């Protein structure tokens, strides 16, 4: 069965519908990206799926015992709060040292346990958030615009990491994004949202759908063509260094369609 499904989900803020009649399902092991312009309800949808927001109509069903890992859009740790990376990984569930260092190594940040969270760069911070989410051994990872504030190589590196994690752990990934080209390269399925689901399908299908073109314009087509590629290629492990910097040529090793 699906890990997570939504049937006819409607969310209203002050009587105004932000989401209407959204239905979707996440299957094990797939990467699904929700794409939409600002104010299209992307984050609202994620928060509704997580059970943070009350639904005006519809329902969200989780597979029994579903293990979820969540990476929030923006987590600003107040400077008044001392917090080492190691301590952060143990919130809210305490984890052992071995698990913590394995998770950090997995996201390419070995040995940063003693660093203060506020001293990390944007890219490192996002990776630590991901490491924390991975410690729950999630069957489904939910990420809300995980690369906000990262530069393009950092962004590409982060999505590559997500893809690797999915391959290794078999976790499904549901994420929200607004940057078209990276998303197109990294997703199995794209859901195009603007208050309701405009269209969904494989990246190639969606990018050719008239609803999608109406929403994002044709200007992005050039960039999309550049980034479309088949998914059955292997990434070379040395593509990303410890700080998430990708090599100067981000297309290296990809087979482009």
């Amino acid at each position: 069965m699906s890990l997570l499904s939504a049937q006819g989900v409607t969310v209203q803020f002050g009587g105004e519908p932000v989401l209407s009649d959204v239905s979707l399902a996440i299957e094990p092991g797939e990467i699904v990206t929700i794409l939409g312009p600002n104010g299209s309800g992307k984050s609202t949808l994620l928060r509704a799926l997580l059970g943070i927001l009350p639904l005006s109509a519809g329902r969200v069903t989780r597979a029994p015992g579903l293990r979820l890992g969540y990476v929030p859009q923006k987590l600003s740790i107040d400077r008044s709060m001392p917090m080492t990376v190691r301590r952060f990984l143990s919130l809210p569930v305490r984890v052992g040292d071995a698990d913590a260092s394995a998770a950090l190594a997995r996201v390419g940040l070995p040995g940063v346990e003693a660093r203060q969270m506020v001293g990390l760069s944007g890219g490192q911070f996002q990776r630590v958030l991901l490491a924390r989410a991975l410690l729950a051994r999630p069957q489904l990872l939910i990420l809300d615009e995980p690369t906000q504030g990262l530069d393009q190589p950092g962004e590409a590196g982060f999505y590559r990491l997500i893809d690797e994690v999915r391959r290794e752990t078999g976790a499904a990934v549901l994420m929200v994004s607004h940057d078209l080209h990276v998303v197109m390269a990294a997703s199995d399925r794209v859901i195009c949202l603007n208050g309701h689901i405009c269209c969904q399908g494989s990246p190639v299908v969606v990018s050719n759908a008239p609803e999608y073109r109406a929403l994002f314009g044709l200007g992005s087509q050039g960039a999309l063509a550049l980034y479309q590629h088949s998914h059955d290629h292997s990434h070379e492990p040395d593509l990303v260094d410890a700080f998430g910097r990708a090599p100067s040529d981000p297309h290296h090793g990809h087979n482009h369609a």
Partner: protein
Amino acid sequence: MLDDFLVRAALAGVGLALATGPLGSFVVWRRMAYFGDATSHAAILGVALALALHLPIGVGTLLVALAMATLVSTLAARGWAMDTTLGVLAHSALAFGLVAISYVPGVRADLSTYLFGDILAVSKADLGFIWAGALLVVALLGWRWQALLTATLNEDLAHASGLNPDRERLVLTLALALVVAVALKIVGALLIAAMLIIPAAAARGLARTPESMAAYAAGFGVLSCLVGLRWSLWQDTPAGPSIVSAAAVIFALAAVFGRMRRG
């Protein structure tokens, strides 16, 4: 031993500091300083209520502090502009309390006791109340510690982990009302918030984890109480303000030391 008023005073201060250390850390992390002010200023209203209804002072302050803390946290959850709202509430609570207390006959002379505390007059019964309240606060925070920290970091993260941030906020609200009731006798309504914020702020520069910050804050609170008490005896200064002054000096020293250590 408890027959010595100085021992009772010192024990009262230590009891309070054990609770204000960890709770004050949350007040600092969540930027609730004004929240502490509003709740503690409301304690004066509680005193007036208790005197008028012949209730124990502790019960009156606890009830009114709880009502105020709940009001503030409800308004916060509804998205009111907190800076202004808390400013209005904190000062009106104090003003109404002072007016209300003037209607109770024979209290005017004691007013400064409630405003600035009267730690040297702590009785054995007071001591029991202070320690029971302080231990309750410590137990409450210890029980919810992981959840409180997670909810303080990010409410969505807490939600996604199956926690309820509203419930954790309620825990802090309760703890704050308890501390206000406990601290009234020691530092007085005007300076309760100082005991929450100053030791925690002093601890910030020295701590690397939330736990060590809470522990340093409790330690600095204990030290402030003992030094302030000593000072008050020696110079015949009011005890509550002396304790807070000691805390402020410790804060300054910790800030300088922290800066030197960082180079």
